[in-house]
């Protein structure tokens, strides 16, 4: 449990970190997201601590996925994102940012497993090769390491040349995680990564994420409150395009300060 004195909660029930005691990997300032004229995110400024898992929870349509997808600008062509997204002292929401380079630092895993129609090996090696890594030995090493980190090396090590589309859903999703971490991002964004999976695959993915936490800052959107309480350090509750409460996961689940949060986690709506 972190030292509570280094975190303060304002009247809006949003926690902020003391930068002396916590390393902040990513934060948003005055972020607003619009789909056409309708505002999808009107109040959602959060700070994310490095090497922690932060869960974003909330009912459908609360804006949590929109918020997450704005963080590495996956919404660029769909929505208008205003405000600042601060990463290493840079506003990555500005026009001067090389979006493609930025996404190599802030990777993403999606709700539906989306492996490429290529071999398991190529799914991982492909993006590396596109960035000029051509040595077979280097690629082999990264493929193996990524698959090990995603806890699937032993299952697929003899089938690396088989098509990734022949894998089961859970394996496909872990391959997508392996693919995302192969390019060594700082931050991993996950948009309900286990919602299309069975309970066994889900718990395997959760174990994988807890392992990855040592080297990655993880921000995960989830519909599953047990999942949020099992794996996350901090939790933010979204409703109607606003972050209503942001606190340590233990606090938010045992002692929510906002009535709506309480209603949501006790299953009264959403």
């Amino acid at each position: 449990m972190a030292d509570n004195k280094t975190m303060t909660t304002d009247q809006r029930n949003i926690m902020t970190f003391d930068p002396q005691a916590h390393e902040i990997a990513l934060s948003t300032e005055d972020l607003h997201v619009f789909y056409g004229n309708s505002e999808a995110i009107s109040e959602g400024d959060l700070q994310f601590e490095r090497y922690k898992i932060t869960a974003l929870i909330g009912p459908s349509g609360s804006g949590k996925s929109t918020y997450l997808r704005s963080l590495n600008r996956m919404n660029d062509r769909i929505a208008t994102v205003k405000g600042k997204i601060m990463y290493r002292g840079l506003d990555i929401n500005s026009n001067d940012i090389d979006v493609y380079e930025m996404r190599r630092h802030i990777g993403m895993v999606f709700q539906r497993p989306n492996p490429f129609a290529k071999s398991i090996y190529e799914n991982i090696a492909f993006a590396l090769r596109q960035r000029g890594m051509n040595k077979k030995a280097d690629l082999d090493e990264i493929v193996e390491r990524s698959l090990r980190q995603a806890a699937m090396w032993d299952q697929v090590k003899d089938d690396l040349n088989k098509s990734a589309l022949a894998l089961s859903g859970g394996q496909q999703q872990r391959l997508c995680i392996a693919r995302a971490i192969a390019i060594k991002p700082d931050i991993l964004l996950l948009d309900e990564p286990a919602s299309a999976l069975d309970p066994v695959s889900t718990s395997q993915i959760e174990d994988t994420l807890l392992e990855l936490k040592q080297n990655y800052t993880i921000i995960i959107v989830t519909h599953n409150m047990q999942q949020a309480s099992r794996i996350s350090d901090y939790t933010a509750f979204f409703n109607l395009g606003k972050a209503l409460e942001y606190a340590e996961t233990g606090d938010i689940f045992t002692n929510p300060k906002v009535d709506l949060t309480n209603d949501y986690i006790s299953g009264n709506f959403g």
Partner: protein
Amino acid sequence: MNAKRVDKIATGVLYAIAALVVIILVALLGYILVQGVPEISWHFLTSPALSFEAGGGIGIQLFNSFYLLFLALLISLPISLGAGIYLNEYAGQNTITGLIRTTIEILSSLPSVVVGLFGYLFFVVQFKLGFSILSGAFALTVFNLPILTRSIEEALANISDNQREAGYALGLSRWETVTKIVVPAALPSIITGVVLSAGRIFGEAAALIYTAGQSAPALNFSDWNPFNISSPLSPLRPAETLAVHIWKINSEGIMPDAKAVSAGASAVLIIAVLLFNFLARWLGKRLYKHLTAE
């Protein structure tokens, strides 16, 4: 009448209609094949046509058909691929895109004889290409572009957006994502579309009568220099294709065995088009399997 009875009658009627379609098709194919297959021999497939005597073949026409097909695809495939990629991956939903789509639709419903006359005025007369392989290939390109563009656009549209997102999330640019992820994933259906359009091109006559011409001058098959007019590869020689040949024999053929030559040529044409269709299915399935399984 109760619902069950109505359903039975409707099923019967639908079966009868389906059977009628199949019967017509089988009868047509069967007639052409039964009439024509006995005429096909190695000599028939390889020797040049004779205008006044019996015993002529379709060798040069067959070669012309394949060569024209090859050139037409060589010109239309890159353009269609570019247009399909633009329409599906880059173009926004606006008036200009809508206009392009409407134009393509109109172009694809243009009767091929109109394409042929346009080719005659534009390529043969205006550009002074004469009755030549090149004029024919350009006319076939006009004929083929809209359909091929549509089929490529559809093939790309069938690739789920989550594939594109996966590429972007790995820091790949839109161009890299399109060329290295989306197009390869769509390749089985793109190839199916190309081979099917090849079948259409191969059987096309009206667009070629006034562009590639109705004569098949003797070719010297030992001369492969495309700049010599008697070379099979020369793009500026007139080149009657198999389909045009069939039309010509039937309208003005005076050789004594015109009927037999026509039947044989028709059978060869039908078999070739059928082969294109089977090839398209087989290739598409194989490539899809290659991408998804093993």
